[in-house]
């Protein structure tokens, strides 16, 4: 079971200040939930850079290679067909499809990659059950912090209030 405390702040600066404050008090398992991307929070939460570019590169090259291979096999190996004396392995004319397949493979992988990396699709989430949390996609900047026990919860609650949280809610996930 995971126990969270959610605190709402007005504006990204206060939210960042609160996240830094919580970190200074030894709370490390945190998340920020915001209606717009706040780049500075990545540093506060020490989020590693995404590996999606590597995924796109690998799948893109794989898609191109696969498409080229299919064209070469069908046109030059399995059923060579003489079209106006053109070479069976006609490299340049295989490039358009290889390029398009690279884009298709990379884009498909990126789409799935973004979803998997974000833990989506997930239609229900304990946070979404909190009525006030609806502001997180409108104008509220939230900090979520994992609290292990009652003592830590009380401490985190105090810190959140101290740093200017407008709302503090408690959420439990799992059984």
């Amino acid at each position, binding site marked *: 079971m995971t126990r969270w405390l959610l605190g709402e702040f007005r504006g990204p600066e206060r939210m960042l200040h609160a996240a830094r404050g919580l970190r200074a008090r030894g709370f490390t398992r945190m998340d920020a939930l915001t209606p717009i991307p706040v780049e500075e929070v990545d540093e506060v939460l020490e*989020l590693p850079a995404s590996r*999606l570019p590597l995924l*796109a590169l690998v799948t893109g090259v794989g898609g191109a290679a696969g498409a080229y291979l299919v064209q070469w096999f*069908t*046109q030059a190996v399995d059923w060579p067909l003489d079209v106006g004396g053109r070479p069976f392995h006609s490299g340049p004319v295989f490039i*358009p499809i290889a390029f398009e397949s690279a884009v298709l493979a*990379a884009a498909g992988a990126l789409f799935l990659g973004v979803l998997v990396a974000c833990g989506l699709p997930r239609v229900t989430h304990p946070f979404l059950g909190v009525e006030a949390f609806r502001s*997180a996609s*409108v104008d509220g900047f939230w900090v*979520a912090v994992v609290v292990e026990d009652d003592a830590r919860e009380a401490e985190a609650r105090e810190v959140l209030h101290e740093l200017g949280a407008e709302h503090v809610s408690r959420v439990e996930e799992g059984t």
Partner: protein
Amino acid sequence: MSEPAPRAPVLEDPLVEHPLLEGRSSDAALGESLLRPVLRPAGWGWWALVGVCSALTLLLCVAIAVTLLEGVGTWGNNIPVAWAFGIINFVWWIGIGHAGTLISAILLLFGEKWRSSVNRMAEAMTLFAVACAGLFPLLHLGRPWKFYYLVPYPSTLRLWPQFRSPLTWDIVAVSTYLTVSVLFWYVGMLPDLATARDTARQTWKRRAWGLLALGWRGSARHWLRWRTGYLLLAGLATPLVVSVHTIVSFDFAVAQLPGWHTTVFPPYFVAGAIFSGLGMVLTLLLPARRVLQLHHVVTDAHLDALARMLLVSGLFVAYGYAQEHFFGWYSGNAEEMHAMSILRTGAYAPGFWLVVACNVLVPQVFWSARMRTSPGVLWAAALLVNVGMWTERFLIIVASLSEDFLPSSWRHYAPTWVDLSLLSGTVGFFGLGFLLFLKLLPPVPISEVKQLQREVEESEAFAREVAAQAGAPGGGR
């Protein structure tokens, strides 16, 4: 707009003539103003337009049914004009799609701030335009139910597609383009679907948008990966736009037919695609801005930028025409010279001069700053560009085919009612798709506009600070 914050004295940037956002409002009010079109019930105007577009879509269904039951013989094309409306409409529609991706992907890569307010609508336009485009080659196959012959699958007949043919390139290019456009559009919309979910008051709307939002919570981890993924998708979509219309131009350029066999076609087609797409963006954006009251986010700055792009791409297109005719003459080849002369003075001259008027002369009015921000002038010009670009594709295909090498086989072309129904039907289908989009999904990227507002405020605050320091005693230069 409700509760506009008191305006600070803003310092004028001499390079920016118009602000990107009119007035300032709180994030909540801004979000609500952008969601208003989908939250409030539809007006009679929307229903009337849906009625017209549905009737045209029905006409499209009839024309498709006739084509399937009777065959492509019901179309006007025949030897020598074996390609006509099927390919004209395909090239026209897919060209229209390109401006959507251009605005959303290329401008994102270049960090252009003004794209934020218009990209969602432009991308939606792309999707429906590409869907209309894809219909034509499929129907043109004659036996559309055997389209899978174009896919390399291991059949017992050992029948492989001919990958040296540009038509198989087309299939891959168009299906890739449609898929990538859908993914790019949807990924970009995730945060706004969550906003719609959290703002909606009716339970069923909340559930519907909640399902589409896939559980987006705006977590820092979500945003980090989303931004990376979105930027990479833009990076992939950018060369895709250029490649797709280049491949479409190969359908013509690799043939030896006079009027088609020219190296200028790939860049000329890409420029024409962007030009016609911008025309369609303006055609849709201007009425939508007025009806949905989006003047505060789609400002004169956006109209100005779109008009400038229309002018620039129009000049590219004009250069393409000049090149085409110059090389027709410079080749010294009798057939090439004939293919160009029938455009200037022959049977197709009225069409050609219409194209020159619509695509070359009309955009020139946008050298004037006042014209660039006049919605009426822009809309009229956009409509003329749409007409001009369709006619251009008509001439490329029909004029070149009807009078080629052998004068004894020359024959001119006339469309049948099925051809005309297919064209007008796809226009209705496209309009229906766009109307439904405006009603069901957030038409302007909410999170991006909020972010834009924050950035504008920050830069204004910075400018004020600099000015205060410069003006303070002892702090000046």
